[in-house]
């Protein structure tokens, strides 16, 4: 296949059961360094369709900083140094022998909606509620699953969020973390069946 001209997409394949040999790294779950003021832990358990914990999964997270900014050149507002020192925006955590995962981070800020299409007529007052994009990888998943974490303290913003609004009301709860303590949120992921997490097509 030549790469001098447009190519056809490489297909996805499963990570299989042995992703631990290649993917996790020691500070993978540290979206912010230890000791960061305002840091919270977000994590939970991944369950399969039989309600059993998934012990060979990996979760990745990607989010804005507390000001709703990204240190990335494709942010049309311009890349900006994160508001929190050492903020990476990205977290990676393999599940443990009880199917649990967690990352240490700071809560993201709200985001303006810039629509992708040039014909967009600009609903300037539309905001995306603070959220974290999530990828789920595991044996048995032939492609990653994508979902989002929203936060329970943002009821008003969540009610106005364009994505949450597009999800049937009875399933929205699967996208909202549960506050277990001021610095601790639970976000369980159910791959299949009862209470199945809402997964997203991007």
């Amino acid at each position: 296949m030549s790469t001098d001209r447009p190519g056809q997409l490489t297909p996805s394949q499963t990570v299989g059961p042995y992703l631990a040999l290649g993917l996790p790294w020691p500070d993978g779950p540290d979206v912010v360094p230890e000791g960061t003021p305002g840091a919270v832990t977000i994590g939970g358990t991944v369950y399969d369709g039989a309600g059993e914990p998934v012990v060979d999964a990996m979760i990745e997270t990607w989010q804005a900083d507390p000001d709703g900014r990204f240190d990335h050149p494709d942010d049309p507002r311009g890349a900006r140094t994160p508001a929190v020192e050492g903020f990476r925006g990205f977290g990676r955590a393999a599940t443990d022998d009880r199917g649990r995962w967690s990352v240490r981070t700071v809560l993201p800020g709200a985001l303006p909606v810039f629509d992708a299409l040039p014909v967009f007529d600009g609903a300037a007052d539309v905001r995306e509620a603070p959220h974290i994009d999530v990828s789920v990888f595991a044996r048995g998943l032939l492609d990653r699953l994508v979902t989002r974490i929203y936060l329970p303290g943002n009821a008003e913003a969540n009610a106005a969020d364009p994505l949450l609004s597009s999800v049937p009301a009875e399933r929205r709860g699967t996208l909202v973390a549960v506050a277990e303590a001021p610095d601790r949120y639970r976000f369980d992921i159910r791959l299949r069946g009862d209470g199945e997490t809402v997964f997203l097509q991007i």
Partner: protein
Amino acid sequence: MAQPAERTPTLPPYAPVPEGTHAPLDFPGYRSTGLRAPVRQPVILPHRLTEVTGPLLTGPIRPGDDDLTLGEHGEAQGQRIIVFGRVADSDGRPVPDTLVEIWQANAAGRYAHRWDDWPAPLDPNFTGGGRVLTDAHGDYSFTTIKPGAYPWGNHHNAWRPAHIHFSLFGRAFTQRLVTQMYFPDDPLFAQDPIYNSVPEGARERMISTFDLDATRPEWALAFRFDIVLRGREQTPFEEPHA
């Protein structure tokens, strides 16, 4: 042409994945999908700020992470090979400075993982993980050994074709990809549900090509594996990275 200041800033959205590219999540021939593939249809997530950005990781990479043959006590056993290629998007734009991660079984088809217990020998000098960044042209290269095939119990006498797992980020959350690279003319393709879960016409893109010109004389064979990540919509927008 400069954008008028009052215009709503536009994002570079990513093109939809064409039908026939990826495997269906629910693929009964691969038994592990049975309890793990979601039943419900996914909800469409339009590409907004979080999706068109992504981690631009430069680590964690240590010297030697691109050479899997260098063991703690000596060189790994097996056929030494160079696995190399270019990472580009579907518009043909190379993806520079992006993290490529690989993991694989050893020459005997055994993973250095506590759950892999089939009776093939472990190699104390082969752990099977590697990392590298693409260069300014999107090119990457690993030195490793050719992995062996192995049985896996999915169905009677099931064997995985030799493969290397690849993980890629690109520059946006939308471009994240995990795949497997295969070797040319493997007689095990026909009975492998993971390979065959990908639609015909697309699965062949996962097969590397033998490249005589890239072999290193008196040293190593070479296989080329080019990877194509999602490109952008064909809509006009300012191109700041031309």
